[in-house]
């Protein structure tokens, strides 16, 4: 009897505690009113006072170290504190860092996500006017904008890039010579002929990996050539009603399936991660590899003059070039106490010759900014020079598209990686790939 009583009363107490806690926590979690960023008078003059600026950056991205060092050399009253975390941790924690009581002034932020809606990012529009950034390439800045209803590509400016990347194809010239290839392919069909020749000669046509999703450099490089650029971009910018399921995207994905069936990729592709495929190409494995300008310095060091870099070829010879490229995007926290100073630093990175040189030397990316400014000096004939030329070509062709991995916060890990693993091992068709990614997209955007 006693046992029964106590058991029942324990349950009652437990339930009461649980409900009391629920009551304490209030009705709905979260804050409803986003904080405003105003209250600071916009100034393009740098303060004389001692200022410490804080930056939250990813590990393995040394350019911020060099830039801040140079800035402090030029302006000794401004010093920096940089905290680093892995890309994955930083991306996951960014909203919480920004919402905290003491947010970093500047933060590496690959996807804007809900941060604008939640009032966590400083609106840079006043500075855009004050500094005259309208002279900078609009196509480079548009992915860094977001409208009030959460659509990227237009609206206010919330990010700037520490370097603007471009992607393309690296070719091992040793293998090319063996196969009698004298210059980069001008069309996709020409590239396929070269890969058939490589396959026949026992040379791996494409060095790629997909244990962490990087084969999507190849997938999207092909889709870019078949898809309508604006339509593709509107999807990446989350415009209402935009879809991934277009005939162009399906054609690109089906091409990947065809390449997988023909054995153009390594047989253990799903066991190869980014680091491994870069190492294996550096060691001479593979005729082609798809990667960005950031890998140029490493490949140059490993392969010397036996490697070249070019833009992914279009379907028809002479068509304009389309390539993925993106800013190494950083945002200013709405809660920053040093808005004028941190934006001065950002403007300086785009305009100061030393800073622009640092961007190119360390990242191999284009420094962006006003195109009429002189380009930093690079070694003639080097891969980095090629990368800058490619950036200029894409600029001239207005052919830059964002990385589809940046479409939503969860789409890369949640859908693009697992589905591409299935696609490159011939488990699903290109159409299924496109349909499944779109289904995930609708669920994430709607939910």
């Amino acid at each position, binding site marked *: *009897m006693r046992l029964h009583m106590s058991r029942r009363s324990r349950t009652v107490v437990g339930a009461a505690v649980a409900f009391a806690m629920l009551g304490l926590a209030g009705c709905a*979690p979260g804050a409803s009113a986003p904080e405003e960023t105003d209250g600071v008078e916009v100034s393009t003059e740098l303060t004389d006072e001692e200022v410490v600026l804080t930056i939250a950056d990813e590990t393995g991205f040394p350019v911020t170290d060099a830039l801040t060092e140079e800035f402090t050399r030029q302006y000794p009253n401004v010093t920096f504190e940089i905290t680093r975390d892995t890309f994955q941790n930083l991306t996951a924690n960014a909203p919480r860092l920004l919402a905290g009581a003491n947010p970093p002034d500047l933060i590496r932020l690959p996807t804007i996500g809900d941060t604008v809606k939640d009032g966590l990012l400083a609106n840079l529009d006043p500075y855009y006017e004050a500094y005259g950034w309208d002279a900078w390439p609009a196509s480079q800045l548009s992915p860094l904008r977001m409208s009030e209803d959460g659509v990227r590509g237009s609206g206010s400016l919330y990010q700037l890039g520490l370097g603007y990347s471009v992607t393309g194809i690296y070719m091992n010239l040793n293998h090319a010579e063996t196969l009698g290839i004298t210059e980069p392919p001008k069309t996709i069909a020409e590239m396929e002929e070269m890969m058939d020749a490589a396959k026949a000669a026992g040379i791996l046509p494409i060095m790629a990996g997909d244990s962490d999703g990087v084969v999507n450099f190849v997938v999207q490089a092909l889709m870019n050539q078949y898809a309508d650029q604006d339509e593709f971009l509107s999807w990446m910018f989350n415009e209402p009603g935009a879809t991934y399921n277009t005939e162009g995207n399906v054609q690109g994905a089906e091409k990947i399936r065809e390449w997988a069936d023909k054995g153009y990729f390594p047989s253990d*592709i799903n066991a190869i991660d980014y680091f491994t495929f870069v190492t294996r190409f550096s060691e001479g494995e593979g005729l082609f590899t798809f990667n960005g300008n950031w890998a140029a310095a490493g490949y140059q060091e490993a392969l010397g003059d036996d490697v070249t870099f070019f833009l992914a070829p279009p379907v028809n010879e002479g068509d304009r070039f389309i390539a993925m490229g993106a800013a190494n995007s950083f945002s200013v926290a709405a809660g920053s106490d040093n808005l004028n100073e941190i934006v001065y630093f950002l403007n300086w990175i785009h305009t100061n010759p030393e800073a622009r040189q640092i961007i190119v030397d360390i990242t191999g990316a284009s420094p962006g900014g006003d195109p009429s400014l002189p380009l930093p000096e690079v070694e003639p004939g080097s891969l980095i020079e090629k990368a800058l030329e490619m950036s200029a070509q894409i600029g001239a062709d207005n052919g830059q598209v964002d990385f589809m991995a940046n479409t939503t916060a969860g789409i890369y890990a949640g859908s693009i990686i697992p589905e591409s693993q299935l696609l490159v091992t011939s488990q699903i068709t290109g159409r299924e790939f496109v349909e499944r990614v779109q289904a995930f997209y609708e669920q994430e955007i709607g939910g």
Partner: protein
Amino acid sequence: MTTTSTSSAPRRAAARAAARRADLAGWLLVLPALAAYGTFVIYPLATGIQFSFYDWNGIGAATWVGLENYITVLTNPDLLGAIRNSFVLVAFFTIIPVGTGLVLATLIRTMRDGAALRAAQTVLFLPQIIPLAAAGIAWSWMYAQTGAVNQILNAIGLGFLARPWLADYATALPAVGLIGSWVLTGLCTVLLLTGIGKIDVSLYEAIRLDGAGWFREFITITLPGLRQELAVLVTLTMIAALSTFDIIYISTQGGPGRATLVPGLLIFRIGFTQSDVGLASAFGIVMMVLVLALVLPIQRLARIGDR
């Protein structure tokens, strides 16, 4: 109550007062533990239940959505697939380690040499002190195309079996499961060995005098004697299987495709990458209910056996 019907009313009142005082002292004694439990277990659990009814990104305003998150958990094929995978892992985290532990413990019990006994125990327990993340890294090297597993297969003429174990759709889940088996077998063996030590030696002597063999001895004496330990181990390892995160996060990230996707990894992604705290909470609550549904009957079975 233990008081009899013949007691007088004042005595009954005094007894009740004493019981109340004892109750109060009891409550005071458990108060510190209760406060800690309330803060770190009950409160997060309660907020988790609360979050699960909202569409919330963790920062901004939340919208009440009722049972929608639960419906998603129970209908989305990706989420259901992850739950299915975690049940496959039960075979590797529970059945294999507990089974192997039983065999090893019975064998070690018969060891005469004290030094060899201690050495065997140490070697078996060693994986338990290695962090799971480190085990995940070491094993993914061994499972790689050029790793130790394939090298051994090539050396003994079974090279045709060689494959990138963690990237093959058929072998990825068993391969990560075996990492768990490797880690948990030591714990099972050592705990079962302690349990066997508590069994009265005279029982073994008696059954041997009756002419029973090794197997008879195992079924009649060892197994029933280990009932408590087995219940604890099955509970622990089942929870480990259903809540796996570190091994998968380090070795496969859920791939290839979704072959090794488990709830732990998905909850982390949904909550922290996709910032869908409501759905992540609902998924967590569903997993908690599943674990309880599996573990409570085991606990009850062990207790019934005691009576």
